[in-house]
């Protein structure tokens, strides 16, 4: 895995909100085709980290290097970064005034100025994969949470991103719908999409990831292959955290 090209490097990243430091000098690298899952207690900075990679939060120190250049470089436009780094949010956030298809096409057509025919075909193909072919003319209000989240994933994929970030995408869903969304992500992992996934679904984390990062207090406390980290955590903090998931 480590022979693969590095697509993302986080270097000594700091981010605070007011007095509180959320990210405390965080480092890691992501290779092409790699699926990294970040776990850790609530408030440890997982979501903030994803938002910093996508430029939704301003960082206070350190750097985020995407494909060799800093995303905070003055010559780099954040809009271009965001086309390379897709993000799927916990609350799906589809545009509520647009149909499913309009939601998916907006970015590719207006931002990337791609051919409508080509993008529509891609969109239909992806909709079929996530099992929502018949919903392309529906409005978000007509869909369930799980369906909306699958559409949000398709919307992100249609931009042809190099990396997709998943920010607790199943946290707002009914247990029954969690599965349908996780299956989609698992499928993407098999196809070799580079992803960073923040989740509280431990079984899923184990199944989908090439590498797990355990975060606490804005730092990566432990990282390793899923079997190692779940089977035999080295740090006391990770042990404590993982024990909470055993009944």
């Amino acid at each position, binding site marked *: 895995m480590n022979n693969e090209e590095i697509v993302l490097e986080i270097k000594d990243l700091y981010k605070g909100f007011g007095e509180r430091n959320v990210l405390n000098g965080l480092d890691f690298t992501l290779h092409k085709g790699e699926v990294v899952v970040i776990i850790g207690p609530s408030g440890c900075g997982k979501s903030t980290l994803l938002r910093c990679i996508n430029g939704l939060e301003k960082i206070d120190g350190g750097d985020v290097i995407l494909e060799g250049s800093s995303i905070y470089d003055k010559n780099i436009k954040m*809009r271009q970064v965001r086309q390379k780094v897709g993000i799927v*949010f916990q609350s799906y*956030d589809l545009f*509520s005034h647009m149909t499913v298809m309009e939601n998916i096409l907006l*970015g590719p057509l207006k*931002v990337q100025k791609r051919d409508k025919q080509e993008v529509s075909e891609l969109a239909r193909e992806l909709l079929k994969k996530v099992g929502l072919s018949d919903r392309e003319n529906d409005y978000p209000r007509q869909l369930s949470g799980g369906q909306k989240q699958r559409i949000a994933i398709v919307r*992100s994929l249609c931009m042809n991103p190099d990396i997709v970030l998943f920010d607790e995408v199943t946290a707002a869903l009914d247990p029954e719908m969690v599965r349908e969304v996780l299956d989609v992500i698992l499928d993407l992992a098999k196809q070799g999409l580079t992803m960073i996934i923040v989740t509280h679904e431990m079984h899923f984390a184990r199944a989908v990831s090439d590498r797990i990062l355990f975060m606490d207090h804005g730092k990566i406390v432990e990282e390793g292959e899923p079997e190692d980290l779940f089977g035999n955590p080295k740090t006391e903090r990770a042990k404590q955290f993982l024990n909470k998931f055993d009944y």
Partner: protein
Amino acid sequence: MDWSYLGRELPRYIEAGLVTLKIGFWGILAALITGLVCCFVLYYKIFILQKIVKVYVELSRNTPLLIQVFFLYFGLPQVGIKLSGTACAIIGLGFLGGSYMAEAFRGGLEAVGNSQIESGLSIGLDKRQMMQYVILPQAISISMPQVSANFIFLLKETSILSAIAIPELLNVTQSLIGLYYKTNESLLLLTVSYLIIILPLSIVLGYIERRLRHAEFGN
């Protein structure tokens, strides 16, 4: 009830109704434009203009239209600015309605959630695209009920303009009552005239509102 009176004076009411409509139309248009400009000044927090707009909104909303129009019609000539009655009427309606429209639009813009904006950012929309494709369509559908209420409100407020001798519906009615003492007949014609003008407008606005809100709220 003198039915022949109704028939005889009908043409005058049609004429006055057209005056009401004309002044209402231009006044509402002025209010819309004023409202849009003010709302964008407030939304984008343009430094000094923002303060001026805030003062204007308070002044406009907390004084009666009658006084605003008196100021334009009787006050301005004292300092050498003479405007025609019609101009005063349109400016007055625009001045009053502008603040109401501004608040309606601002309410709509601010109601567009931050998550929708972040969602737009995450697919790489720039500022203009964000406004055009995400914020405005949602803001318009949210503010539409308030905006259409303002339309009706301003159209009814044209009756105030009778006080500055604009020959609109109320003004004509008062003249006719003075001339013929046919109070009931005149008031009947007046009421019916307003209904004929405003009711269809209400229905059309209601229809537009439902169409605009269909995507987000269904039927």
